[in-house]
């Protein structure tokens, strides 16, 4: 065991059991899978994707590039970093090579999403972030503080001193004060993306670390959608490795990470340690490990090692070699020896742990997501924020400040707490790689991509880091180049003889760390994927045995089968009952828009193809809306309610589109018009009462209403009341039959529906669904926009030139009607098709071709159009279809062929109106 007494913050009093690669181990609460493995002396975790080289644990947190694992229990999860998996009892995991595995079962966990608005969001609870949050909170701001680790403190190991106290006591005090000031402080919460205007997404891990103790009601993960006036990026810095031959072996690790393992988890990652550095920070790691009992040798690239540190090292018995570089390593499953070149020549140092530090890369991802500019800082040997991004600041190590005193000042200004004395930092030696076999110098360890690969890319003619990345695949693996990105730029620059400043880095893109799909889906799954809309009568429909159809977001009754009926028989019955007696439909899903204001008529005149402003109060007019291209967008009826008020209806599926369309014109083109639009779809319920007996039913229910043709003509509406409840009735017919559309406030819909049914009972009133509605309208040749049209059909194509005003100066789509193509005689026109055999129902969507007496010729076969609607008709006692056919109206009476399942079905082109062409029925 590598656990050292007196170190670490794991709960050694409790033991957790876990399984890795089939073997059982123990660890403690507070461990990560990686720290627990190291504690058990396990360095070998997985293997590399291409070459199958053994891989170990190369860091302690999200910058780790090698220790990828598959979780099998408690629930399969592909490809996680062992360094970020918190240990729980019963965890089962295995090392990965290349690909993770998805569960074959559905994930039982719940995920959700929360919106948060705040004055200041601080990302990162290291010393800089804590102090920035504190300053903002003390100034009375509303503050949110998020941090991805399990507790606050950031890179503080606990050995530092702040204001004369151990650093972690200082952290605890700040955390306590933040809580008192009401700061929303979330640990285990990773800000993973920053978008414009202070919009930050953060993922909170809420249950995994609790294991079996997680409360059942708690969602596993939550996405916080945070909107902040000010965003403070205090995300720290990640250590940068140096590339040398065989730098990918288990037991090779970033220097600060080894320190983290020691102080956070009490784990000594090696006993015989070589530290290879070009930066001062690694001396602290060397000294701490030596203090914990390791034997440590330090190789510093620089000719002049930092004097103060070197002296401390000497005191601690750590040998320091200046001007020394690692040139290779030995050991298969774990590093066994380090090969180096020192001023005295080549040496071989036996080792079970090799720590590396090439300086620091500020974690600029979130700054860069929002397009904050980065520039190369030659002192850092890395990229850091340059420009200020409105509302966003980077502080502390994220901004390149590497000394604790400076970091504290970044967070709290001149009155910052005082850091204990530390040796002054000396310049980092900027080294991307050492000498040695470039074939074995891994730049992106996960992708087995080497210096040789970069050399080949450059030799192939590539000059951009983006090209090099794609050629070599560097930076495309699970870690998205956290440690390899800057190195790849540096080495490419070196090989090209260019300046890294001119080359830049590849772009950082969200997410900062991987996020489960399900977390992003949140609660928008199943029923809530797109919340179901139902009408107030839904329960009644269910009780009546309706079969439902999805129309837009709505569930609509498609038909109401009686015992033993299939759809066809049910629909034939519903159709016949309606045409011969009376039927009733729940039409409440119809889109309804209340248009009010002195310019309401002007707006409608500009949008509809026909004139609406001349409509009289109390009357109804059918209208068509076209797009700019003159193609039909939607249709519906318009009721004039009073001088400045209209109520318009849209198709069920088109309601939102039409409202958006109208608002777009109103807001962007004609803001001067004094009109307001309000969706009232759900406020009004609508029941068309249809058929020759409808007058009797409606007349009986609304005793105050004169339902005769003279007092209440076709295309008029009347207000009445029933038991004091206002009701609006309109004479509109979508079936050709006498019909009354009864509108009522949705609150009263079930009551009114029941009254209408009761009154209709002796007339045999039959509730019908959308399918019957479709058949009845098709028999009359009324198109359904979106079914009989597809965005390429003009009103003229539909045979509705009468709906296009010749008088109006202009309206949307008018200009397009004069284009030559709109007068092309070969345009497709709306017609009916009668299968000659009188039996075949043509499948909707079928294509139509010229008669082929010798069967279908070889492709390409010219197409004349297609079948848009097709039904059995009770009235006609035969199947019929509607279709769009080239030059169709001129071809009425001609025959065409329709390929169906490999055979040809002959059909006769006819006029669209097949039932009651004289229109005799609409007045009863």
């Amino acid at each position, binding site marked *: 065991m590598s656990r050292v007494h007196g170190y670490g913050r794991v709960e050694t009093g409790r033991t957790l059991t876990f399984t890795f690669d089939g073997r059982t181990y123990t660890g403690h609460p507070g461990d990560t899978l990686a720290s627990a493995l190291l504690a058990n002396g396990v360095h070998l975790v*997985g293997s590399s994707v*291409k070459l199958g080289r053994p891989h170990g644990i190369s860091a302690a947190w999200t910058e780790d590039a090698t220790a990828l694992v598959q979780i099998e229990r408690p629930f399969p999860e592909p490809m996680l970093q062992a360094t970020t998996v918190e240990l729980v009892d019963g965890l089962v995991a295995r090392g990965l090579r290349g690909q993770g595995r998805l569960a*074959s079962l559905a994930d039982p966990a719940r995920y959700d999403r929360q919106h948060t608005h705040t004055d200041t969001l601080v990302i990162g609870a290291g010393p800089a972030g804590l102090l920035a949050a504190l300053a903002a909170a003390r100034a009375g701001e509303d503050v949110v503080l998020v941090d991805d680790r399990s507790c606050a403190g950031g890179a503080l190991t606990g050995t530092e001193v702040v204001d004369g106290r151990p650093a972690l006591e200082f952290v605890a005090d700040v955390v306590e004060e933040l809580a008192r000031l009401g700061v929303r402080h979330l640990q285990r919460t990773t800000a993973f993306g920053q978008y414009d205007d202070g919009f930050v997404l953060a993922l909170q891990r809420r249950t995994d670390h609790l294991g079996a103790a997680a409360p059942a009601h708690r969602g596993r993960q939550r996405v916080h959608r945070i909107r902040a006036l000010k965003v403070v990026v205090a995300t720290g810095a990640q250590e940068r490795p140096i590339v040398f031959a065989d730098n990918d072996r288990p037991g090779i690790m970033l220097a600060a990470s080894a320190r983290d393992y020691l102080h956070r988890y009490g784990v000594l990652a090696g006993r015989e340690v070589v530290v290879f550095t070009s930066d001062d920070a690694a001396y602290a790691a060397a000294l701490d490990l030596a203090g914990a009992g390791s034997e440590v040798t330090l190789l510093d690239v620089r000719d002049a090692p930092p004097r103060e540190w070197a002296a401390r090292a000497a005191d601690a018995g750590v040998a320091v070699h200046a001007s020394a570089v690692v040139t290779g390593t030995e050991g298969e499953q774990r590093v066994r020896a380090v090969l180096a070149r020192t001023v005295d020549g080549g040496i071989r140092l036996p080792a079970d742990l090799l720590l590396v530090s090439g300086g620091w890369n500020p974690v600029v991802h979130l700054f860069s997501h929002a397009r904050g500019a980065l520039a190369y800082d030659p002192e850092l040997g890395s990229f850091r924020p340059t420009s200020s991004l409105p509302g966003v600041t980077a502080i502390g190590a994220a901004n390149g400040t590497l000394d604790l005193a400076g970091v504290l000042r970044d967070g709290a200004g001149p009155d910052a707490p005082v850091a204990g004395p530390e040796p002054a930092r000396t310049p980092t030696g900027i080294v991307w790689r050492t000498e040695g076999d470039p074939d074995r110098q891994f730049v992106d360890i996960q992708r087995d991509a080497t210096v040789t690969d970069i050399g080949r890319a450059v030799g192939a003619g590539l000059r951009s880091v983006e090209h090099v990345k794609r050629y070599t695949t560097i930076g495309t693996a699970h870690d998205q180049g956290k440690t390899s990105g800057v190195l790849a730029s540096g080495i490419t620059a070196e090989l090209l003889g260019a300046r890294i400043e001119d080359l830049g880095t590849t772009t950082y893109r969200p997410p900062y760390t991987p996020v489960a799909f399900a977390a*992003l889906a949140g609660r928008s799954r199943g029923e809530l994927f797109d919340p179901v809309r139902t009408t107030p009568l839904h329960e009644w429909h269910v009780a009546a045995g309706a079969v439902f159809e999805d129309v837009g977001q709505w569930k609509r009754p498609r038909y109401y089968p009686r015992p033993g009926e299939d759809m066809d028989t049910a629909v034939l019955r519903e159709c016949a009952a309606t045409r011969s007696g009376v039927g009733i439909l729940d039409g409440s899903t119809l889109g309804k828009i209340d248009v009010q204001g002195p310019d309401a008529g002007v707006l409608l005149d500009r949008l509809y193809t026909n004139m609406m402003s001349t409509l009289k109060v109390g009357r109804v007019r059918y209208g068509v809306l076209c797009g700019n291209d003159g193609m039909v967008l939607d249709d519906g009826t318009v009721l004039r309610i009073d001088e400045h008020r209209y109520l318009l209806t849209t198709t069920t599926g088109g309601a939102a589109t039409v409202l958006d369309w109208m608002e777009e014109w109103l807001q962007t083109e004609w803001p001067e018009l004094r009109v307001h639009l309000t969706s009232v779809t759900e406020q009004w319920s609508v029941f068309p009462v249809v058929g020759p007996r409808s007058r009797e039913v409606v007349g009986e229910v609304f005793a105050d209403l004169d339902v005769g043709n003279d007092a209440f003509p076709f295309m008029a509406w009347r207000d009445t009341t029933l038991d004091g409840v206002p009701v609006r009735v309109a004479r509109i017919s979508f079936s050709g039959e006498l019909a009354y559309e009864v509108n009522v406030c949705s609150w009263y819909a079930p009551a009114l529906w029941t009254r209408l049914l009761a009154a209709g009972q002796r007339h045999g009133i039959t509730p019908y669904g959308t399918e019957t509605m479709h058949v009845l309208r098709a028999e009359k040749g009324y198109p359904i926009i979106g079914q009989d049209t597809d965005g390429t059909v003009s009103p003229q194509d539909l045979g509705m030139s009468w709906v296009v005003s010749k008088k109006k100066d202009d309206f949307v789509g008018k200009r397009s009607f004069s284009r030559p193509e709109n007068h092309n005689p070969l345009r497709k026109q709306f017609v009916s098709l009668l299968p000659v055999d009188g039996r075949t129902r043509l499948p909707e969507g079928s294509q139509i071709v010229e008669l082929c007496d010798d069967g279908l010729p070889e492709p390409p076969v010219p197409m004349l159009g297609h079948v848009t609607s097709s039904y059995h008709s009770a009235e006609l006692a035969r199947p019929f279809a509607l279709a769009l056919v080239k030059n169709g109206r001129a071809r009425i009476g001609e025959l065409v062929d329709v390929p169906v399942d490999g055979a040809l079905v002959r059909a006769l082109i006819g006029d669209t109106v097949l039932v009651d062409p004289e229109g005799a029925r609409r007045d009863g």
Partner: protein
Amino acid sequence: MNDVTTAPGADLPEHPDFLWRNPEPKKNYDVVIIGGGGHGLATAHYLAKNHGITNVAVLEKGWLAGGNMARNTTLIRSNYLWDESAAIYEHALKLWEGLEDDLGYPILFSQRGVLNLAHTEQDIRDSVRRVEANKLNGIDAEWLGPDEVKRICPIINTSGDIRYPVRGATYQPRAGIAKHDYVAWGFARRVDEAGVDLIQDCEVTGFTVDGDRVTGVRTSRGDIGCGTVALCAAGHTSVLLDELGVRTPLQSHPLQALVSELLEPVHPTIVMSNAVHVYVSQAHKGELVMGAGVDSYNGYGQRGAFHIIERQMAAAVELFPVFARAHLLRSWAGIVDVTPDASPIVGHTPYENVFVNAGWGTGGFKATPGLGWCFAHTIAHGQPHPYVAPFSLDRFTTGALVDEHGAAAVAH
């Protein structure tokens, strides 16, 4: 730990040791192609290969093929509704089928088929219509019921307990995916070999004009004279044509895509659903590659809004419950140039020697070789190739639109 010696799908074929020279621009070229994306490069390839025209420069403002060519989700199919579209995309698909040999480059063209799901009655009508049209145009297409969908892609939830159950799908077996960089670099290497100059970091900022002819382009690397200009600048085409006073009905929108980590193979085909707005394939290395519709606002920012990604993830998990714990690894966006009828604009401009190719919107990758072939023909003959003739700029005045926006059409 796994002890297999090669991880499945982990490895991609190596790129060749040499790709292209980085020449200084010459004073003059017979043809200057603006935009070094897939279309610009393919056009240069077929100019050289089919027409022997090699005194050509491809001018690219950034790094070669770093625009949409580097960002797309590589779906290739030809099951388009309208005859005009089917003809050009099917021409392209046939070229894809021989492209690896033509380019001598492993482009990883994998014909794994595409399922376009239907969830509503109207989806079914539209699907049948498209399948029937495809068959009559000689394009492989089938209508499949939910059970057959499940057989081809077992991880799709075809049960009734999802919000919009899968009612069936159209299937084009010859559809597939390829590796976009490999395609671009394959073309680039070939055209470089043919003597074409690929000039990067060379932004065209304006034109020199003589009457209704353009005599040269102004660039960030100096003025370059030219006999013919071929615009292949995708989302920036309208900006360039503005310089010439030519208005084009193009709107540039962000279009986003994303990938997961590498996963063991679970998804053998390509699945697209317009109704729930997502499409997914599993690429060669094992990552899930997905996209959805465009962001609705206009922009040149090459990044989109996050709610689009969230919506798309919801749709993905809804259709593929096993994706729940796959992880989003990286998301990005390109700028796509969308026309009012969602079909491209290819052919003449009011300038005699300026030809335009733009407006491929969310679906131009699949056209790459077909467009290159036809655009090269157009440039060489001064007349549109028959396959691109329907896509003239003047169709917006004549009204002869090829409306792929319509109900029956599918994006990408």
